[in-house]
Every structure is written in structure tokens, then in C-alpha cells.
């Protein structure tokens, strides 16, 4: 069940993504309205992070395209923010909390120029919003998992974007942080920002998100939570009736077959 929206802020059109010729996402096609908190939900290996990375232009798709605000990503980069998985970086890196948040300003500052006092006050503001201002001078290796996630969130806020893509922001964080983050996301959505979150917990997904994208190598369902997040749809996503799909993928990898002709 795929429910489309008029005037979408994000349009993913017929997206197929492959790793070494083996398709991991097949023909993903959905749209997203602005001002919602959307959850990308699905079992392990469903391709949730891959979808997010492809939208952010970090993985080239084999076919299909993505449009944000009706434009390709390149033209609207300044309005788009990305929060990678917490484990994707080396937390021993010699930078302070404030340094990391200031990185969110790099896109606005431009090449060869340094961040200024205005950027600094924005960064401190953002740290305040996630309750981390006392830690501004702290080195990042001294933070707990939840604190690291808050810092990443503050960095995203500092980008002052209109749409935010977050990869597993609730993975390995304490309950207090989880509540603080979801509260902040609701506040942001209230001011018209759009937030897309990769999430793996079915229980909380229902309460956290007002739009659900249910994924398992292909798109099972996409639409308002109350309409698409049904027992039947979840069963379909987690039921694993897709052995044929992965078998075909294996053959393509083995024979080094292109996922599209041409």
C-alpha cells in the first residue's frame, strides 16, 4: 500500500540501488509531505540506511532519481541536513563538542573561509537545545552514547536546514535521551521542518512517527501511520516471502550483470 502526497517535499522515483551489482533496493517509489516526522522501518538488512545514503547522494543509484523540494539534491544541499550513524566516526578524534557542532556550519561558510562569531553563537544555541551546553569544551571521546547522539543532533540543527535525514538516532542511547530527542523532533516538525528517521523498533514507531515507510528490499508500504502501519503490512515486511528476490540478486552478482540495460 503506497499512499502518495500532492506537492511532496521529497520524491523518490523508481529507485534501484546495488552493491557490487547485487540489488539491495528494488524499485523504491514514494513521496513525503512537508512538516511530518517520517520513520523508515524494516527488518535488519532491509536496506534502510542504504535508502538514506542514496537520498543523500552518498551511494549512486543504479536507476531512478530523488528530488527534494522538486529539485535534484545538488541544487538544494543547503536546505538538507544529514545525521550519520553514530558508529560511523572515530570518537577518539581530537576535537571538542563545540568543534563538531560548528562542522554543521561548514556548508554555509563556504570554501577557504573560517567559521565566525555568528556561527559560534548558533552552534552554542543548538547545543543548548539538546541540553549539552555544559559540555561545549569537552573532548568527544569523553561522552556517553546518548551524549554523542545529542552532539550529532546539535550539528544537524546548526545546518538550519528544512529537511533532516537521521540514521538510527535512537540506537544505543538511554531512555532520557530518546525522549529528549523525540521531543525536539516534534518541536521542529511543529515549525514546518520535515524529519526522516531510520528506526528499527516497531513498538515506538507507531507513537513517534506520523508517516511510515515500511521497507524490506522493496517498498512494502508508505503513507500516514494510522493508514499503512497495519498488522498485515508489518507481517508482509517482516514475513520474509522474498527468497526469490534475493536469489535473483545473487545470480546478478555472480554473473556481474548490470542492474539496468544500456
Amino acid at each position, binding site marked *: 500500500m503506497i499512499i502518495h502526497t500532492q506537492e511532496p517535499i521529497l520524491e523518490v522515483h523508481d529507485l534501484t540501488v546495488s552493491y557490487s551489482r547485487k540489488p539491495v533496493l528494488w524499485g523504491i517509489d514514494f513521496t513525503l509531505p512537508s512538516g511530518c516526522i517520517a520513520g523508515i522501518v524494516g527488518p535488519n538488512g532491509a536496506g534502510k540506511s542504504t535508502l538514506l*545514503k542514496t537520498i*543523500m*547522494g*552518498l551511494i549512486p543509484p543504479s536507476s531512478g532519481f530523488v528530488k527534494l523540494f522538486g529539485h535534484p539534491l*545538488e541544487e538544494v*544541499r543547503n536546505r*538538507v*541536513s*544529514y545525521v*550519520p550513524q553514530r558508529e*560511523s*566516526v*572515530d570518537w577518539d*578524534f*581530537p*576535537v*571538542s563538542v563545540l*568543534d*563538531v557542532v560548528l*562542522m554543521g556550519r*561548514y*556548508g554555509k*561558510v563556504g*570554501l*577557504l573561509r*573560517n*567559521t565566525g562569531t555568528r556561527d559560534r553563537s548558533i552552534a552554542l544555541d543548538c547545543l543548548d537545545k539538546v541540553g549539552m551546553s555544559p559540555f561545549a569544551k569537552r*573532548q568527544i*571521546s569523553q561522552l556517553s552514547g546518548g551524549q554523542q547522539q545529542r552532539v550529532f543532533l546539535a*550539528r544537524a540543527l546548526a545546518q538550519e536546514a528544512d529537511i533532516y535525514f537521521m540514521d538510527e538516532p535512537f540506537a544505543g542511547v538511554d531512555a532520557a535521551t530518546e525522549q529528549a530527542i523525540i521531543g525536539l523532533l516534534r518541536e521542529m516538525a511543529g515549525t514546518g521542518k520535515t524529519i526522516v528517521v531510520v528506526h528499527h523498533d516497531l513498538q515506538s514507531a507507531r507513537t513517534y512517527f506520523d508517516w511510515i515507510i515500511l521497507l524490506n528490499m522493496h517498498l512494502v508500504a508508505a503513507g500516514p501511520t494510522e493508514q499503512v502501519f497495519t498488522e498485515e503490512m508489518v507481517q508482509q515486511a517482516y514475513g520474509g516471502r522474498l527468497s526469490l528476490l534475493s536469489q535473483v540478486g545473487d545470480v546478478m552478482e555472480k554473473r556481474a550483470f548490470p542492474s539496468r540495460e544500456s
Partner: protein
Amino acid sequence: MIAFWIILTGALVAITCGLLGCFLILRKMSMVGDAISHAVLPGIVIAFLLSGSRETLPMLLGAGATGLLATFLIEYFHRRANLQTDAAIGVTFTFLFAIGIILISVFAGKVDLDQDCVLYGEIAYVPIDLWVTANGTILGPRPVYILAAVLLIVVLFIKLGYKELKLTSFDPAFASALGISTALWHYLLMAAVSLTTVSSFESVGAILVIAFLIGPPATAYLLTHELKHMLAITVVLGVFISFAGYWMAYWLNASIAGCMAVITGVCFAAAFGYQRARNMNKARMSEGLPPAGQAAG
């Protein structure tokens, strides 16, 4: 005066290598410097055969060409043939180095070079290689000018690209999401490392280049949590190592480059020991025990 020039040369190389080495170790690419510094051998032999002299420019060009060839081959085998990076590095630089030794053996009569100079360098001869202008004024050792120019380029590069180097090293995915090209900064850094290695090895040798690329940054990395401080400590360490290394070599009447490498190791060992002691004390305190030093009292 001889001591001054040698120490200055050592310090210039140590600072240039150290500044770039900070980013190399943070990007987990330390061994690329090792590969480049060995891979320059065939380049300088060919340059020597073609130009028939030990002029600096042809040597730099030859060394630079094989240095870049090495980085290209490593990248190519890794990407196109799916060879694991460490094996790609190991296979490539040993192949180029072997070619270099064979060339030297074949043209033994014509080439006034040996493999030793690549490994050890000839820092002791730096003060002799003077730059004399057309009207006979002596301006001091030529390598010092070249190394100073390279240092200037590297400092400018890091100053202008500090923000991008820092971000692409720390979080490449986020950098790409901001539209900063991680590949571009990777190749700029590699080019800077090649330039530095190539201009340094003639004076200090491949081994000391590796020691300077990794030693001072690794030591500084243990001592600080701030990238800017890490760079600053690396610079100070570089000067100290050059000074202490020369002094030790003078005292033992032994290889200057070797002594500088040993001092690098001593500095790291000291920092490592300090860090271990501090961590153990912290662990003791968190268990409610007094720090080790006070335990007896």
C-alpha cells in the same frame, strides 16, 4: 655552523612531515607515507640516467613521478581488482623498490647512487651542498631553501584547507552530504605527502621520513584532545627531536638520521608511559583507591 644547518634541515623536515602526518594517522593512512618514500628509488635512478647528474630538479621530478605512480597503483589495485589495501601497499612499493635496486646494479658504472642513500639519506652532507649565486655569494645550503619552500606550501595548504581536512578526516559521510568532495581532499593530501616525501628523502632518507610522518603526530595524539594543539605539539617535538638527535649522534659518533629516529621513539615511549600511568591512576581513583604514587603513604 655545520651543526646549525643540519639541525635546521632536520627540523624543517620534521615539521613538514609531522603536520601532514597528523592528518595521515587520523585518517588511518600512515603506511601510505612508507610506500611513497620507498617507491621513489626507481624514479631517482631513471632521472639520474636521463639527466646524467644529481641536479635537484630532475631528481625531484623522477621521485615525484614514481611516488605518484605508487599511490595510483595502490588505489587502482584496490578499486579495480578488489585487492585489500594493506596488500596493495605491500605489493606496490616493494616492486618499485626492487626495480630501483636492479637499475642501480645494471648501471652500476654510470650511476653514482646507491640504495643506502634512499634509506639513510645524507643529512651530514647538507651543509656542503651550497647555493652559490652567479656573482659568487654563498647563500647557505640548497636543501634548506627547498625544504623551507615546501614547508611554506604545506603550511598554506593546511591553513586554507583546515576546515575541510578536519571534516573529511573526521566524518567523510557528513562532508559529502555538505557537498565537500572527500576524493578531492584525499588527493590534495596525497599530493602534499608526495611532495614532502620526495623533497625530504634526499636529505634524511626514507626511514626518517616515515619516523617524522608518524612519530611526532602519534606522540602528540596521546597528549592532547585538540587538533590544533596536536599540530602545535608536533611542531615543537619536531624541533626538539632534530636537536636532540643531532646531539646524540655527535656524542655517539653515529648515524644522524638513525639517532633522530631513536629520539622519536623515546619521545613516544615517554608519552605512552605518561598516558598509561595517568589512566591507571584514574582507574584506581574510580575504584576508590589513592593514586599509585601515594599508595605507600
